[in-house]
């Protein structure tokens, strides 16, 4: 559906995108995940035509769209600040993209009603924008980008300015709406929870490059690099020199490995470690241990009956399935 | 949104219409640029209009100096077709700027030869008047003041705060009076015209911007609020102040030797006019008996055409100085700016 090949973007000497290549299938939701400044938003702007790529090709539905004006690309873009037109009503905002087409007033009204129903804002047609709550504005912005039936929908941190509790419920809603509409979408966020909920595949971005692109499960259990590991908050990176687990390590040229928390469990014998921190958080307990010469690891204990104290000696079992070689720098 | 576009349309329409209003106002008749003191009897002008079919518009452009300057600034694309009211103190500036088309009226032969010079190739003399000091007779009688008989006397203490004169930069009688003082006191020596003017100013002489301001605002006989019983005006002004009941004029001119300067007013056809023929007809009209005879009581000046019968009132009260100051026009041309400049720097400080 969308095919990016070696897309570069520079502002003078400052290279913002350094060769992005990406394929997105029909009906797929891709999530661009990364810290601010990683180039996520720039990539969206290049695809939308708001920035002119310095190099590379963009093919949308078999059509090369490099050099086309944004208004000729028929893509949807939902801005982080929603960019709702403050001088128009809800209905006028949603209808804005429809007027450029060849619909009569009756059809426009029908489509607006349809979309308002989709985002569950029935009856909001004549509301002025400044009287909407943040969540309502977000949904109007979504409806507005959906209205002209774009070939590709892009959402730039659509929930970024909302508070956490609202975000949780809305992210599922946005997911369902996109899937219901059968749209291909690119979703930009810096929040991995959001990404996991919404994405078919996640692309981790750093310094204008894609570090790894994979399904959420694959990403979580098979991270490629130390950056991805740290970005996902997985911690337990060990060096290939680590004596204690030398024999467990797979035969690999990698110099660093991730001991995935999922692969660490308490055992009656095995690897010797000392508990340094215990954090109880309801359904699980995060345990940090110090493994001699191999640094400190963190894993989770799900059995509420197990009690651990700081300083206690424990034995660990490592499932070698969960020892993941990381790419060399 | 619709309302805004409609508003915009209405606005653009208004702009277009207003351009039309102004644009179609180009004079369709003969326009005469003249000074603020111009006047003519309705019936005299009406007769001309009837006879020739030429509508005449009078455009008063301020003081004589200002209308000349305006004409110089608009040379080639004039404000009017005819310029009337340029006098011998400003004539050379206009001739130098080439603002006039040459025209010699067939009626020039009727003009008193004293008023003819080589300038008549371009301009035609119409009238003359002597710039003299006028005084309020009643004031001088009540205060038992002697009427000054020379310019020098005006600086005497008994005349302190009694005279109003005009700024020569902005008023043509003002300039004429300045020329008279230059002629009387000279530019060099122990006591120059500038020393004289300093003394006049020390003696609380008021300087007004224009003749009409001086006469109608500050002169006791010209305005109820006036407080100055002497004013620089014309020897032909007193008929204007004749009381119909008592048949006496409340003012008189001082026509003593060396106190008056003779001003000749000319008319010329402005280069750039498209109505040359009508303009020529108008110049001829100004030399006609009807206009010449109308001049005295309308503008209080003397006609230049010989043997015009003066109105009784005028003949009786208007005075003609025997020996007005005569200054070579070339000398005036050469020094006018200089005199005005020096005067300004001395008097208006």
């Amino acid at each position, binding site marked *: 559906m969308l095919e990016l090949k070696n897309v570069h973007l520079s502002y003078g000497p400052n290279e913002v995108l350094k060769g992005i290549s990406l394929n997105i299938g029909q009906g797929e939701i891709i999530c661009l995940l990364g810290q601010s400044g990683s180039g996520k938003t720039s990539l969206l702007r290049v695809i939308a035509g708001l920035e002119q790529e310095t190099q590379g090709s963009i093919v949308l539905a078999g059509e090369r769209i490099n050099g086309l004006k944004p208004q000729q690309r028929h893509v949807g873009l939902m801005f982080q*600040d929603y960019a709702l*037109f403050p001088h128009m009503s809800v209905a006028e905002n949603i209808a804005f993209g429809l007027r450029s087409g060849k619909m009569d007033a009756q059809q426009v009204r029908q489509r607006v009603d349809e979309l308002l129903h989709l985002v569950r804002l029935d009856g909001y047609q004549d509301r002025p924008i400044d009287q909407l709550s943040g969540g309502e504005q977000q949904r109007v912005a979504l409806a507005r980008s959906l209205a002209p039936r774009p070939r590709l929908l892009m959402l730039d941190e659509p929930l970024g300015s909302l508070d956490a509790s609202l975000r949780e419920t809305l992210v599922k809603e946005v997911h369902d709406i996109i899937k219901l509409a059968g749209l291909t979408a690119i979703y930009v966020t810096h929040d991995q929870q959001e990404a996991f909920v919404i994405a078919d595949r996640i692309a981790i971005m750093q310094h204008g490059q894609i570090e790894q692109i994979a399904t959420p499960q694959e990403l979580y259990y098979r991270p490629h690099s130390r950056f991805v590991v740290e970005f996902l908050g997985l911690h337990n990176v060990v060096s290939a020199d680590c004596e204690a687990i030398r024999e467990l390590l797979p035969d690999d040229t990698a110099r660093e490995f991730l001991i995935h928390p999922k692969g660490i469990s308490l055992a009656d014998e095995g690897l010797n470690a000392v508990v340094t921190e215990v954090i109880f958080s309801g359904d699980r307990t995060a345990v940090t241990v110090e493994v001699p010469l191999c640094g400190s690891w963190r894993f989770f204990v799900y059995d509420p009956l197990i009690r651990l104290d700081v300083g206690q000696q424990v034995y660990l079992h490592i499932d070698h399935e969960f020892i993941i070689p990381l790419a060399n720098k | 949104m619709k309302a805004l576009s409609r508003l915009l349309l209405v606005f653009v329409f208004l702009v277009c219409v207003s351009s039309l209003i102004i644009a179609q106002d180009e004079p369709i008749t003969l326009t005469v640029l003249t000074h603020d003191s111009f006047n003519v009897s309705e019936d005299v002008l009406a007769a001309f209009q009837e006879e020739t079919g030429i509508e005449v518009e009078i455009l008063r452009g301020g003081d004589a100096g200002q209308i000349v300057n305006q004409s110089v600034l608009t040379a080639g694309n004039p404000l009017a077709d005819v310029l009337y009211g340029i006098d011998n103190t400003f004539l050379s500036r206009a001739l130098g700027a080439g603002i006039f088309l040459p025209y010699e009226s067939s009626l020039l032969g009727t003009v008193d030869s004293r008023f003819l010079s080589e300038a008549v190739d371009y301009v035609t003399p119409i009238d003359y008047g002597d710039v003299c000091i006028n005084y309020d007779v009643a004031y001088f009688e009540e205060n038992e003041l002697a009427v000054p008989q020379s310019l020098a006397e005006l600086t005497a203490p008994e005349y302190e705060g009694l005279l109003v004169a005009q700024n020569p930069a902005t008023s043509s009688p003002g300039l004429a009076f300045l020329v008279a003082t230059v002629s009387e006191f000279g530019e060099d020596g122990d006591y120059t015209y500038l020393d004289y003017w300093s003394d006049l100013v020390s003696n609380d002489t008021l300087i007004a911007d224009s003749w009409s*301001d001086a006469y109608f605002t500050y002169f006791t006989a010209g305005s109820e609020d006036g407080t100055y019983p002497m004013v620089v005006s014309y020897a032909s002004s007193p008929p204007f102040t004749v009381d119909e009941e008592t048949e006496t004029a409340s003012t008189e001119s001082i026509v003593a030797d060396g106190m008056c300067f003779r001003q000749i007013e000319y008319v010329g056809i402005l280069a750039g006019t498209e109505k040359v023929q009508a303009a020529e007809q108008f110049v001829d009209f100004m030399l006609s008996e009807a206009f010449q005879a109308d001049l005295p009581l309308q503008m209080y000046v003397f006609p230049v055409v010989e043997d015009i019968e003066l109105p009784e009132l005028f003949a009786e009260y208007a005075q003609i100085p025997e020996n007005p100051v005569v200054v070579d026009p070339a000398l005036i041309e050469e020094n006018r700016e200089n005199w005005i400049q020096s005067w300004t720097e001395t008097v208006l400080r």
Partner: protein
Amino acid sequence: MNNIWRWGRYGLVVLPLLFFGLFYLYPVATIFDYSFRADGVFDLSGFASIATSAYYRDTLVFTVFQATLSTFFTILLVLPGAYVFVHYKFPGRSLLLSMSTLPFVLPTVVVATAFLALIGPRGLLNTALMDLFNLEAPPIQLTHTLTLILIVHVFYNYSVALRIIVAYWSGLSSRIEDAAAVLGANRWQMWWRIRLPLLRPAIVAAALLVFIFTFTSFGVVLILGGIRFATLEVQIYYQTINLLNLPTAAALSLIQILIMLLAMLYYARLQRQMSSSQTVVPIRPKSASTWQQRLFVGGNLFVVIVLLLMPLLALIVRSLWIDGQFSLEYYTLLGENVRNSVLFVPPMKAIANSIAFGLMTTFIAVVMGTLLAYLVGDRLVNTRVGRFIDPLIMLPLATSAVTLGLGFILALDEPPLNLRTSWVLIPIAHSLVATPFVARSVLPALRQIPPSLPEAAQVLGATPFRIWRRIELPLISRSLIVGATFAFAISLGEFGASVFVARPDTPTMPLVIYRLLGQPGTENYGQALAMSVLLLLVCLGSFLLIERFREAGVGEF
């Protein structure tokens, strides 16, 4: 289509630059040229005559002197007023504060006429006193005095200075005065050691602005000053219109431009410095409680009202009150074209002219001002030219209208721009004065539009024109209305440039008023009054419109 738009955009950039280049820079450059070589050869005689002449030196000294005095008295009067506005609540407070736009829209000729109607020899005050005490002559003799000029200058600048100082003062922390009071500062010390030093930036800025305005005072001095008092502006006018001494006029203009440029640059710097102060604990105005406070507040309000409203009221009353009874005679006279009138056309025609010129000016100024605002806001072409053009926008304000008029006369006299005698010069001159006001109104509104709005519209398929028409235009429309009204009011009242370039057959209202005032006789005076009232009403209407549409923070002055 894309190319048309791209090139069209550059065309839109060129348009205002061409306009300013042709009708501002070129005339001003001609003045420069003229003052150095009037007859084609390098010649400093214009400057020499100025440098060596005590007369011109006096003009310069007088210009500075009267501007300094005007500034001093304005600030002296404004400080207690500002104290009252900052510290006390009273009815009409915000209305009085908003009056600071009034001087921009009140024509000088109207104000001059208004003061003549109040304290002139035939003014209300004098006639009343004469009736009351059976006096022969008017007791108040202020015509052609420096006092009268100063009074009018204070009238003009009081509200402007008040607004600047009050705005700054309100932003200062109330804790400072509290602390000083706790430390035992008495009333004197409070003013000398606390308030004045704290307010210094605002006082200097206000004083500089007042100085700029009064330094270039033209109409007020020309009408009320008589020939003895001439500012540089008036001198330039005399040298041109009365003496046709163009080299000297050009040299004087040059001096004026340079002085004004320095002052404007300094002012721009001060303005940047001032914008930094804001506090979390501002001084909150409270109601006056003790009788001393009430007296103080009342006294200051009395000054404001007497100063600002009395002359305008006197003007209206005097135009209707003829020989002890109300009459519309002066107004009906306006419709008549008397053959021996000094006016070429009936005065009513001047009203039509003024409105026509006003509309044309509004049109030109709105187009040019909006384009300039886009250019400066970097919205038209994505470059950095904006920051260079930004200060240039204010240049026509630094150049006096009289200089502009002189520049037109000197520069626009040859084909293909032989406009010297065309009425077109009037709306063009007015537009030059008005365009900065439009640009200054539109720019902040434009800057408030987040870039994502037009981008969102673009992604939704809108063409650049549709984005402008549907998104940007509606969002700047309020500011546009403010700017347009400013332009209209400025055009209506403009005097300095008009007096140079207007032909007698197309006079504007201020010119007719000036011409009538210069003529003797009650009827002329009466017509001048009536005409002034009409002009005043239109300008007050414009002022109300501006205040109605002006949002807080809109308009960078």
